[in-house]
């Protein structure tokens, strides 16, 4: 099958001695401004409206289910002995993992001086924020008395007369996820200030100008301001890089610090982090590929960008596959009966169907990215990335559910089944995520125009001077 890339837009070919262009098609600074701003300035397309209505409906359904849950109790879920952590925690870990790709693109690729990140980092960061919001809902409501969730905070309480327990990974989670959400929010917002100024300066409507004016804090583009801005950006990137690694590490500690067979293993922190990057990039691709077509951003989010992300998915997917094998090997090598059983039970026990779904989606499907056609044809990218997301959800499912349903005491074994509320909340959380993302696309600058212009400037500079 021939590559269906428009000749003028194919920057996937590697030419030795020449840097591949990242901003394509005779773009100028103004064309970049126009391409990105018109998304927020023109009335929304039909695709956006339909997508928004569906997502908003699902998000509302999520809200209703949460109300029902708080009113009736956690018995509406399938959580029961021995699977006390059911889908709520699976969903929590799933969403937190997805969020990590945004910070990785923003921060870690920045530290690696990968300029191709500039056209995707804004949307990826937004995805991070929304994923963290979806994630944070689940621990908040699964505590049983959600209205007392503030007891997790270390405040001096005349009612409780106790402090939080800082040796518990569940409390570390509270600090980690809230720090991650806050820092990601700051990073995302700070990145948007210059672009919001652009929106402000292009606004014709008084209210619109006022709104964007407030949000852009009076940004004028002063070089002195830019200097401090760049310094803050670099510092935040340097802070966010270990943060993203630590957050999913701490989430993995929820499991690794316990004694449950299949959980109590030191491989979990790197394994979870690799899995998070893996699933996050898959979600970025799932969002970006349709978005670039719908919003006509092919010259800015080029095939090369997509291909780079596919390569990262291939790399992290291979790491995840290796981690599966390592876990299995260590279970055999350690010769602990319950640990060996846990892994055989995953593959051959009552949840074998979930396990093999996970293996197919996580180990086999990313390997398809070895082939260039699969990396550069958009619809193939979307299909594979959706499979990766499915596989990563199942990975969390397998880890949480199988280990709990059969642990040390056979008399306590039981099969877990989700209820309709479990299903509703999972689907509803996707609805919330897409609602927020579509709102972001409608009102906020989806691409970091300032950085892309800087990339273009560098590109022009290098092409003028004829050097690499």
């Amino acid at each position, binding site marked *: 099958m021939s590559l269906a890339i428009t000749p003028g837009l194919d920057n996937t070919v590697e030419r030795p001695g020449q840097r591949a262009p990242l901003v394509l098609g005779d773009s100028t600074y103004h064309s970049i401004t126009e391409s990105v701003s018109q998304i927020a300035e023109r009335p929304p397309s039909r695709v956006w409206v339909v997508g928004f209505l569906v997502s908003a409906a699902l998000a509302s359904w999520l809200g209703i289910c949460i109300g029902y849950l708080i009113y009736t109790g956690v018995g509406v879920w399938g959580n029961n002995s021995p699977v006390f952590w059911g889908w709520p925690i699976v969903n929590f870990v799933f969403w937190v993992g997805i969020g990590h790709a945004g910070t990785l693109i923003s921060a870690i690729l920045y530290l690696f001086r990968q300029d191709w990140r500039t056209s995707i980092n804004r949307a990826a960061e937004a995805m991070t924020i929304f994923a963290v919001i979806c994630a944070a809902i689940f621990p908040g409501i699964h505590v049983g008395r959600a209205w007392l969730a503030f007891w997790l905070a270390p405040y001096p309480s005349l009612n409780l007369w106790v402090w939080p327990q*800082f040796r518990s990974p569940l409390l570390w989670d509270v600090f980690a996820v809230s720090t991650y959400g806050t820092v990601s929010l700051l990073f995302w917002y700070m990145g948007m200030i210059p672009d919001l100024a652009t929106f402000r300066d292009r606004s014709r409507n008084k209210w619109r100008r006022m709104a964007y004016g407030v949000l852009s804090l009076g940004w004028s583009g002063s070089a002195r301001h830019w200097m401090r801005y760049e*310094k803050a950006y670099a510092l935040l990137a340097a802070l*966010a890089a270990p943060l993203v690694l630590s957050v999913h590490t701490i989430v993995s500690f929820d499991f690794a610090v316990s004694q449950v067979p299949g959980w109590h293993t030191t491989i979990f922190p790197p394994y979870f982090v690799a899995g998070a990057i893996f699933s996050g990039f898959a979600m970025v691709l799932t969002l970006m590929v349709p978005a670039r077509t719908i919003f006509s951003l092919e010259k800015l989010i080029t095939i090369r960008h997509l291909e780079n992300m596919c390569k990262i998915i291939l790399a992290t997917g291979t790491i995840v596959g290796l981690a599966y094998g390592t876990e299995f090997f260590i279970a055999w090598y350690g010769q602990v009966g319950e640990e060996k059983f846990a892994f055989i039970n995953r593959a051959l026990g009552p949840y074998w169907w979930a396990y093999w779904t996970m293996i197919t989606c996580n180990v086999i499907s990313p390997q398809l990215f070895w082939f260039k056609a699969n990396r550069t044809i958009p619809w193939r990218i979307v299909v594979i990335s959706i499979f990766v997301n499915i596989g990563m959800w199942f990975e969390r499912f397998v880890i949480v559910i199988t280990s709990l349903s059969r642990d040390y005491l056979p008399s306590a074994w039981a099969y877990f089944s989700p209820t309709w509320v479990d299903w509703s909340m999972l689907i509803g959380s996707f609805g919330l995520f897409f609602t927020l993302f579509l709102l972001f696309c409608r009102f906020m600058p989806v691409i970091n125009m300032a950085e892309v212009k800087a990339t273009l400037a560098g590109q022009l500079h290098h092409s003028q001077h004829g050097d690499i």
Partner: protein
Amino acid sequence: MTDTQEKKLHGVYAEFDAVDTLLAACRRVRDAGYTRTDAYTPFPVHGIEKALGIRPTALPWIVLGCGLTGSAVAICMQVWMNSINYPYIISGKPYFSIPAFIPVMFELTILLSAFGAFFGMLALNRLPKFSNPVFTNPRFDRATDDKFFLYIDASDQRFSHQGVTRLLGEIGGTEIQDVYEDNSSTRVPTAIKVVIGVLAFLAIVPLLSVARMRVTNSPNPRFHVFYDMDFSPAKEPQTISTLFADGRAMRPDVPGTVAVGQFDEDPNFYTGVDLEELARRDHDRAVRLVRALQDSEGGTAAPQPTQQLDDAPWLTENPRPLSLDLLERGRMKFEIYCAACHGNDGRGHGLVSARAQQILSTAWVQPSSLHQETLYQDVYPDGKLFSVISNGIRKMGGYASQISVRDRWAVVAYVRALQLSQNASLDDLPVNRRNDLSRRKAEVEQRLGEQAEAERRRAEEAAGAPAAAAEPAAQPEAAAEPAPPAEAAPEPAMQEQPAATEPAPATEPEPAAEPEVSPEPAPAEPEMAAEPAPAAEPEPAPAAEPETDPAPATAPEPAPASEPATAPEPAPATEPEPAPAPATEPEPGTEPEPATEPEPATEPAPATEPEPAPATEPEPAPATEPEAEPATEPEAEVSEPAA
């Protein structure tokens, strides 16, 4: 903007199309000596700081400071909350545990550093600043789009309007503009004010309601949003339930089940009976016993009187390996559960018994002395002793529900140690203890001598000479003779089990007291029998007090039945006991007899009456033992002649 002369001039700027031209112009302006300059660009331009002479920022230091503050706050918070103010015991982990505190430290460091970076940047940039004179010109809107501006502020020392305008033109700038103060209205639109007002009002209302609630009282009961959480319908223990026929909310164990950890593969361990042997002899009985064991929740339920099998093939050996720890455990349990009646020395003069006799309880039966020969291991196997502890005998209740099965075997081992302790000779002691013993014996003798002297002097003054002569005469002898065996007695012959000396300290005071009390049941000293028991009772009491405080409590009456030499004595002195205690498994039919018969025959002060009779009874008793069923009948038979 009609009257430009009155407006303040802030500066002048020029427009550029490309980065290169802007940079070149910046260098020219810098070289010309202007410092209060700035460039306005849609994106950060590489090299512009150098081109304009902008000095680096101190922001990184701010971030560092915030980060260190975050670390400090985190570690202080955690240490204060979890290590100092309210330490939790979590799986034995140390209160101050750096590894456990690191994740929160890390996160707070990052969080405060991020705050420092973001808010520090805004503060250093003096943002938000919504009103900026450069915005006045609509053409400046392209500064965030695709045009570059170079600006020279009027406050610069070298500023002159014409000079700057000319320079900007020379270095390639187009659209050179003056920047004037913007005098347009700063009035906030009404709509915004209204919205902000409404929001502020709405935000205050909940706070005011809460404040009002906190300072007022209400006649209404509190409203419970989740009534069934605040008043849970789940049943508490010891409450009634209408769901079950027996009306109990607490449910008993399912019959025929054994709780995890309660079952041992060896049912002999739980019964004290060799069940295979019993099954050979009497199959039905074995089946009943095993079934009873299963229903008794692993042997821990309240004991069943029907489980008393006196002719069962008892286990002759303690199934738990003997060790110091085992005896210590047994001692602990004995002193908790058994010593109340049987005394710390096992002689039957526990506090409960003392009280019962003090109030002249008619239903009381003297607890057995554990040092009767009929209770020795050869005739009273360990398994039978275990069964007695578990199920009780006669007036003694069973302790199956209070002492675990393993601990009951420990108590059995300890009782054997106790018995041996009263049956040992000086040669059974380790050599070093013998020297100790001799020394202490000498001390005790000396003290006794002094006491005797004091008594004699008092008696001489108070009573007549004969009485005074008789007592001191009797007492030193009694003091002398029982002293060596009494002293030896506490030192058990178990060289490897120094813990067994524990019974010695417990019993030592009593032997020391014995000299005073022994006059009556003195070993084979008939003249002692002459000493009236009533007289003996007050004597031991006052005489014993200085010596041994525990002794009066445990040996108020002359019933030192554990003296090995006093073979006849144990029988008489413990006559009420042989009947109740040793006859652990009398035939059900005969049970009442032994229990009751000796009682009328012997008074609570057994030393008196039984003495003449006791001298004879022990002989028939041992003689008849072989005939009777092992270890049971003799007591019954002993009581019969007594009766």
